[in-house]
């Protein structure tokens, strides 16, 4: 393509501008990593920007020995595994019948509305809390898993994907005598692996990052998932909850560096898996939005 000199300069300018913008997206994380690896004294003096000063691993050592951090991490992992499996199962099972048209599935319209209304309207915080209280799920892991079981958004994504699968495949399977269950599991699910991977990624991220439910539904910090733990433990350090021994240890490590290390470890699972799932979420976003 022929470019005028003016356009060439503009091109260089855009390249540099976007490069800087990209660094701005990364900068806070680099700063937090540098802080977590620095000696607390330099951090308090404000000498640490993007490179650790007085390199040390004490804050990570402190966290390694911090049992409440790991307990919360474990709760997060538990709810993640159970939550993702539950969401995927319910999404697939609900999306398949709803992807049929009204001739094939006569109750479809009514059912589609039943699934769609929660997307428009919800009971709000207090009835949600009272409901889980009434079910006796407070302070159990189930309170963090079950309420999010059906995501209408995921159902809509997969439903639209299922619609794009050629009808002939289903008809061929019907002639072979397959039941609808068989068709779902041996035709539709294998064909929609990329779409399912996409919602699995979304579901994992959503569950890993949720904190509000933990804060409301768990009455003791002992039961907090990781994000709730970080939210409560780092926003307001509750010295009265800590033992004398822990306060001493914390003062040696430094409040800021310990917090930075906690935050960094809390983000690490996302950072580590991000390159692998990047291709899926872009796909998924388009799956849902640009369609006929």
């Amino acid at each position: 393509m022929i470019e005028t000199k003016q356009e060439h300069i503009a091109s260089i300018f855009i390249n540099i501008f976007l490069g800087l913008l990209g660094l701005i997206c990364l900068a806070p994380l680099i700063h937090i990593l540098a802080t977590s690896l620095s000696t607390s004294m330099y951090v308090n003096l404000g000498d640490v920007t993007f490179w650790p000063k007085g390199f040390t691993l004490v804050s990570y050592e402190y966290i390694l020995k911090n049992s409440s951090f790991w307990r919360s991490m474990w709760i997060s992992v538990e709810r993640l595994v159970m939550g993702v499996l539950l969401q995927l199962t319910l999404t697939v099972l609900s999306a398949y019948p709803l992807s049929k048209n009204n001739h094939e599935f006569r109750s479809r319209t009514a059912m589609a509305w039943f699934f769609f209304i929660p997307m428009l309207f919800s009971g709000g915080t207090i009835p949600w809390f009272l409901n889980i209280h009434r079910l006796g799920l407070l302070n159990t892991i189930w309170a963090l898993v079950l309420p999010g079981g059906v995501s209408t958004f995921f159902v809509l994504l997969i439903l639209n994907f299922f619609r794009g699968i050629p009808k002939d495949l289903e008809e061929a399977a019907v002639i072979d005598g397959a039941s609808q269950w068989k068709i779902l599991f041996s035709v539709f699910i294998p064909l929609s692996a990329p779409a399912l991977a996409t919602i699995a990624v979304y579901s994992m991220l959503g569950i890993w990052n949720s904190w509000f439910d933990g804060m409301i539904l768990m009455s003791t910090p002992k039961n907090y998932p990781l994000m709730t733990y970080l939210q409560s433990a780092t926003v307001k350090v509750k010295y009265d909850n800590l033992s004398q021994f822990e306060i001493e240890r914390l003062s040696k490590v430094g409040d800021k560096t310990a917090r930075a290390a906690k935050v960094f470890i809390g983000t690490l699972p996302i950072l580590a898996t991000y390159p692998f799932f990047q291709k899926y979420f872009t796909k998924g976003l388009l799956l849902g939005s640009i369609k006929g």
Partner: protein
Amino acid sequence: MEYRKPKKKSYFRLSKEIQYLLMLLPGFVFLLIFQYYPMGGLIIAFQNFDPLKGLFGDQKWVGLENFRKILINPYFLPAVRNTVSISLQKLVCHLSAAILLALLLNEIRSTGYRRILQTLFYLPHFISWVILGILFKDILASDGLVNNIFQKCGIPPFKFFTNKTFQPLLVITDVWKEFGFNSIIYLAAITSIDPALYEAAIMDGAGRFRRIWHITIPGIIPIIVLMLLLSIGGIFNANFDQIFNMYNTTLLESGDVIDTLVYRLGIVEANYSLSTAIGFAKSVFSCFLVCLSYFLAYRLADYRIF
């Protein structure tokens, strides 16, 4: 070639309709328990709710008393005003930032560089507001990273967490988090524009800026309209996650939104009925707006949800 006889039709074979209904059953039950039942719980907005008597217990009915109380609550109107103000500012900034980024990214020729940039831009979207709240509070504190850099450059220290600066701060940090991710959809719309149009424009001697102005932008207008319409529904959501993780009691004047008010009344002060009444009113208005936005999107952009 092997010939396979079609399987005999079983007498126990369930009809298609029943099979479909069975598949829907688990999802149906979950929605019933965790979505529809709490919706029924909205009745406490019309009661003087006593938690000891239970959700559908023998409560005292007060009619619309709670809604009257909302209107005289000194925090309510400022909260509504803040909510709408924050979300409108966000709406405009999100839209323009994302479109601009998509246009600029599209101008980058090297695919490798572009991919690296996209990886960086999308990253903040996946980090929770809990983490980012801690991060921003740290970085923007009076002894934080930004003010330290300011100090070294001789710029006077700047207070980021004041009532004057809090709303712009919310908008900027939210845009920082989402602009890359929001640009994906526009970028996809740009790539679906017919390349023949660009070739023809080049033949006619149109420069890059004219091509953007006359081809790219008109090409993505439908998507822009659609996104604009769909975002109408979110006007009463100013992003609770973000605000809750960034505000403090000194910032209520500019940062208190409907959701944080619902939280403070309901969870902190345990005033269940009043909190639910506010949430209920918000849900009704939001629902109306969402329906309106879907309707407009359907009429104007031929968008269908299912």
